[in-house]
């Protein structure tokens, strides 16, 4: 069964049809990319999936449940985590607190934790902190747990955003241009990290990316959006050779 099923969603802002009849099906464990020129509506799709916008038409079904019109925090608690195109950390909080908040709030659906947890409040606070630290370790950020998020260098802020999104223990992770602003080497490291995370946490990943080399190497399937409409869908190979895509987006640069 599909983990995520998006049926014909559309949204307009004023006269602009930002997303028009968008469909998507993600199977558990898939890694799918969403590409398209600037302003094609990619982030809008993310905003609909996370409940930040309500689609005017269509439905979003996640994990067998219709989540269309559900509030952001509820959708997040059901298991959709995301990162942002422009980094949006809780800048004045520590690195550790950024992760802890996501864990404590998004993790609420796991009522079993609450019931079977033993020991005092203090102990559970410590458990949470330990857990968050172990997550930071994956991202090589455990040494910076006590630092204020805004003081981290750019690359680390990007990693912290992913760490924070994962702290909610999502089933589906939405990454909005995770490689933006990274140099080629950092991008390659990110690629490995995403592959590893997906396996380690059995994640389904849907990502927006402008870095073609990353998308082509990482994704099994790619959707191309232009003017709010899906103009192509297929394997990286198919996308690379699709004339409509080349015309709309990739131009001469495809190698």
């Amino acid at each position, binding site marked *: 069964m599909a983990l995520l099923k998006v049926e014909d969603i559309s949204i307009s802002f004023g006269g602009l049809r930002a997303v028009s009849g968008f469909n998507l099906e993600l199977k558990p464990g898939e890694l799918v990319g969403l590409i398209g020129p600037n302003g094609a509506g990619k982030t809008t799709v993310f905003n609909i999936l996370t409940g*930040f916008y309500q689609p005017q038409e269509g439905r979003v079904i996640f994990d067998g449940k219709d989540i269309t019109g559900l509030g952001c925090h509820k959708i997040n608690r059901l298991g959709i985590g995301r990162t942002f195109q422009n980094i949006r950390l*809780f800048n004045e909080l520590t690195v550790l607190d950024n992760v802890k908040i996501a864990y404590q709030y998004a993790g609420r659906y796991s009522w079993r934790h609450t019931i079977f947890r033993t020991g005092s409040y203090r102990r559970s606070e410590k458990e949470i902190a330990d857990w968050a630290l172990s997550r930071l370790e994956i991202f090589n950020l455990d040494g910076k747990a006590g630092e204020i998020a805004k003081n981290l260098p750019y690359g680390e802020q990007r990693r912290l955003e992913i760490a924070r999104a994962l702290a909610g223990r999502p089933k589906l992770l939405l990454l909005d241009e995770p490689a933006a602003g990274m140099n080629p080497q950092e991008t390659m490291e990110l690629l490995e990290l995403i592959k590893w995370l997906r396996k380690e946490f059995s994640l389904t990943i849907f990502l927006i990316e402008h870095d073609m080399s990353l998308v082509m190497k990482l994704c099994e399937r790619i959707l191309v959006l232009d003017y709010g409409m899906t103009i192509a869908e297929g394997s990286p190979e198919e996308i690379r050779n699709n004339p409509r895509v080349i015309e709309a987006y990739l131009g001469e640069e495809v190698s």
Partner: protein
Amino acid sequence: MSQFLQQIVNGLSLGSIYALIALGYTMVYGIIRLINFAHGDIYMVGAFVGYFAFRAGLPLPLVFFLAMAVPALFGLTIEFFAYRPLRKRNAPRIAALITAIGMSLFLENLGILIFSPDPRPFPRVFTNEPIYFAGGVTISIPQILTLAFTSVLMISLTLFIRFTRTGKAMRAVSQDAEAAQLMGVNIDRIISVTFVIGSALAGAAGVMVGILIPRIEPLMGIMPGLKAFVAAVIGGIGVIPGAMLGGMLMGMAETLVTAFISSTWRDAIAFGLLIVILLIKPSGIFGSSSRTKV
């Protein structure tokens, strides 16, 4: 010298009242970027609840509890019925601001309607007999009570914001509400909590002012509300320690000007202080430079 110290003591107790009210302004602003102009009137509600509770002969802790709980309920209700619908419809911020002014006028006139516009003497719960302190400085029991209880409230609030899960979520929402929502934080609940805490603090300030300056009336919230707002801006709106410091500065400036210059100049100089501080540091003492939203 002792005269000066005396005025410092007086200024601190007045300032702590302003600080308590300023906290509500600053917390609400920090979370939803709204200047809640009805906040000064919430403080009036607290004073009236305290008035009736004392007259009913309730013990002091219960009086304070009621005088914090009832305004908290007011704050919660106002947010729910007046501000939340606007937020849900993505109304421009000016609409919320006008609603806040409307709410303020509503509460003031409701107060006049129910309690009549005449000032009432607040029950004398404590003797105002000054207690002699070191160096000829005197302090009264209401002043001690005000300073002590304000300190307790401020310390509790600071600990709450710093260490509890809800406190951290409040900070997260004030830094990036959208991101917080997408991390599972229910911002409606956080906003409600903010209004409850802010209103409870204002309610406590209302009772304390009744004990300190035993005269209450339905329009009593206007000036202190305005001054507390100014205090919040001086400290850096949205910043909690800023509201505390701003309130103290405001109370101190007012008391010192009254004592050493002239009481007619009191408000002019207090507000002049605001202008000077904002000229030097436009975002307030603890305020960070303007945030860019991306």
